[in-house]
């Protein structure tokens, strides 16, 4: 009887852990909408006011939201739009068009997307008819025929800088032009991570832009960063099992003060302050949760840090064969002696031969075998041809190359290399004493 009860208890525990994991995963992935915003209240208010003015009083606006990657630009806009949908006057009045520079790679595609999202008459289902010129004319007419009283449209243009590379910037010009003249009220909301984005715009486009910019900088102090850590990992008030949630949140508070977790967080904080990288760091520990491992431990975070902080080039160097390693050392020596001049295979081979023949214990390989090793290094992009025009101009032995591994990386890789012959490590450390 007791056993059965214990088993039931266990399975219930597991369910709760699984639920916690699902909950946290949803919070950590890209699609979720974060609720709390750190230190952006002023910008948020400004943006909210602006969109409201367009939605309610029919004012045409344009604004650029600028900020580094992962600093919360899209989050800010999402949360503003989310709040606006709670107001009935705005929700019923405002049409939204979302564009993304990654998806709409040219104006033609962008125009079709706009007509699709606005569901104008030349669309049936999700198909759009008409050529580029027709669609543009149609769209412009539709927008121009409107007045202050027609429904305002909000254009959210993500990756705004990519739209500036479109031919003649036709789309941007037309959007800004409409926002400047008394036609359908629109609000153009550009989102970009380039600080010099205004310089990319053509003169006529630039002059029509209102030059209103919102700069988002992450100004988190480390304490706030720690707070962020707790708040991302805590379970919210709408978690079904509140008893477990409060217990969990308490444990997270304790964890955030744990010395080794603080250490990991400090490292991450010094590397970058964006929220996205922090979330990625947390993903691994969250995924580790299971029936036997019900609470997050400091060790998980250390593991996650280790995974994200491995030097990838050193890791790749660890896996090359000894012959390839010898070639890299030869190239390092050539770099040292000739002061970073490019080299070709013949020089590397000669350097290698000089070393290999001096050591009787070493196996000296034929040129073709060495060439194969050399080509493997090129395939791994540890060595790069100076000009990538292809092979016809010069034989592959004479193509000029440059080494893409730093000498210090070579030396550290040698220390970690499994069963590295001593003569090789000695040879690596002295380039001139031959």
């Amino acid at each position, binding site marked *: 009887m007791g056993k059965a009860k214990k088993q039931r208890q266990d399975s219930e525990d597991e369910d709760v852990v699984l639920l916690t*994991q*699902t909950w946290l*995963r*949803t919070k*950590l*992935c*890209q*699609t*979720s909408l974060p609720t709390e915003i750190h230190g952006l209240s002023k910008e948020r208010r400004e943006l909210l006011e602006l969109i409201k003015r367009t939605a309610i009083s029919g004012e045409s606006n344009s604004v650029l939201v600028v900020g580094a*990657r*992962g600093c919360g630009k899209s989050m800010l806009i999402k949360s503003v739009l989310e709040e606006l949908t709670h107001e009935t006057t705005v929700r019923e009045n405002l049409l939204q068009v979302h564009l*993304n*520079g*990654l*998806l*709409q*790679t040219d104006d033609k*595609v962008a125009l*079709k*997307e706009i007509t699709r999202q606005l569901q104008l008459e030349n669309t049936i289902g*999700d198909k759009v008819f008409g050529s580029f010129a027709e669609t543009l004319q149609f769209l412009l007419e539709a927008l121009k025929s409107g007045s202050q009283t027609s429904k305002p449209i909000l254009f959210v243009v993500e990756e705004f*800088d990519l739209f500036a590379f479109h031919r003649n910037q036709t789309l941007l010009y037309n959007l800004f032009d409409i926002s400047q003249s008394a036609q359908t009220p629109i609000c153009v909301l550009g989102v970009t*991570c*380039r600080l010099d984005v205004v310089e990319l715009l053509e003169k006529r486009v630039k002059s029509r832009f209102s030059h209103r910019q919102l700069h988002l900088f992450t100004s988190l102090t480390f304490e706030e960063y720690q707070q962020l850590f707790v708040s991302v990992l805590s379970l919210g008030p709408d978690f079904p099992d509140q008893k477990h949630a409060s217990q969990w949140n308490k444990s997270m508070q304790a964890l955030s003060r744990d010395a080794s977790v603080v250490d990991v967080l400090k490292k991450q904080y010094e590397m970058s302050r964006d929220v*996205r990288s922090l979330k*990625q760091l947390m*993903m*691994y520990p969250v995924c*580790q949760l*299971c029936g036997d491992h019900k609470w997050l431990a400091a060790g998980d975070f250390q593991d996650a840090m280790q*995974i*994200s902080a*491995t030097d*990838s*080039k050193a*890791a*790749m160097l*660890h*896996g*090359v*064969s*000894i012959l390839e390693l010898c070639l890299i050392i030869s190239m390092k020596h050539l770099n040292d002696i000739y002061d970073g001049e490019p080299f*070709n295979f*013949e*020089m590397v081979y*000669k350097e290698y031969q000089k070393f290999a023949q001096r050591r009787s214990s070493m*196996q000296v*390989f*034929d040129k*073709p*075998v060495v060439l*194969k090793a050399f080509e493997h290094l090129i395939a*791994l*992009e540890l060595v790069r041809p100076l000009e990538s025009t292809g092979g*016809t*101009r*010069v*034989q592959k032995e*004479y193509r000029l190359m440059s080494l893409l591994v730093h000498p210090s990386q070579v030396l550290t890789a040698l220390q970690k290399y*499994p069963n590295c012959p001593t003569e090789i490590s000695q040879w690596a450390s002295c380039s001139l004493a031959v």
Partner: protein
Amino acid sequence: MDRIQCRDKQITLLSNLFGQPNQLTVPAIFLYGHTATGKSLVLNSLLANAKLPHVLVNCVECYSQRFLYEHILNVLHSGSETVLETSQLIKCDNMNDFVRLLKQEMISKGLEKQTLYIVLDKAERLRDMEQNILPAFLRLQELTGLNICMILMSEIVWEKYRFGTGFCDPLVIHFPDYSKDELVQIICSEVPEGYPEGFYNMYVNLVLSIFHYACRNLKELKHLVILNFKTYVQPITSGDATIGDTKKLWKHIEPHLKKALHTLYLREVSSTQWERYQEEMETSENVALQGISHRSHVDLPFYSKYLLIAAYLASYNPAKSDKKFFAKNSGKINKRLKLNQAKRKERTSNHMLGPKPFPLDRLMAIFYSIVEGRVAPTANIFMQITSLVSLHFLGHATGEDQIEQPKYKCLVSLDFIKAVSRTVNFEVSRYLYDFA
């Protein structure tokens, strides 16, 4: 799953990240490691075992964005790699439509609650495609708002993918190389019938001791192990040795393996040729084995040969030394050259720096001085030069106009030119600055 050896850590890590089918997961994972470290094996068996919905894409096959999108959509649509009727094929040529159609497709298949895995093998090719593809794929979860996980596999480290204004970085996971013991363990998991495991283990160790220095690729090593096994056991089958005679067997196999390193490993002979060669070895000694590189003899017309030799001399000799080699009375200059000889030795030889470009005039001048008899500069001669270019024996050097003053480079090796000059009884090394 338990077939896979030495990859337990990676398997648990990945399966933890995948989690339950309905759970959301990381938007993108980047797997990197050397060739044959089990990236595809681990991933494919993980996905197949759990029957997770997934699409495998090889970026070498799908070399343009259109192929890439249509492949993903069609595989998703039909549920397998089989080709649909042409009328049913989904057409899609830009990212915008792809995202829209992907959403439709997933909802119509009832996949909106499950994670869809899109696996891109050889992901380094994505860098050569349109610039928006890689960043958009890494953001696909956000762009579609669906439960999608992109998995990229590559040999190249992640740092080399970054460009432009940056994008969402994926979770980077390294697949470490196999150590020597692990290699032996993996290869030994398939012991040929009729031989004890310890015996095979010893053999594999022998092969690795020769090849491991130059090659760590599991596939290549496995191939060599299987191919040479017949020769290794040949003394046993013929009755000269027993299974215990390790020394005798080693003596027998060692020269073979050394030879295999130079011929087979470089693919100069094909595997079937090698097998046939080994069979012939049993019957008669000294079967000449001619590889691809030994057959570099090409039959050329007489003047083409001289043109090629002249081009080689022009490429590898400095223009200053032409007077010494080719002028009729070169006595005076010789003295001065001798003085320079000490200096010259210090410089790196031309055979290390590669061919230098030379103008057509110089080629013709050298050609006339080495060729016997009078040759008229007919159209035929110039035709032969262009045909040498099209055969890639000569190459156009950059710059300048191609009709008025063309420049060429000689693109053949020293061995080749020696072979060519032998056929016309011309001693090329006497005229070479590095050897004269």
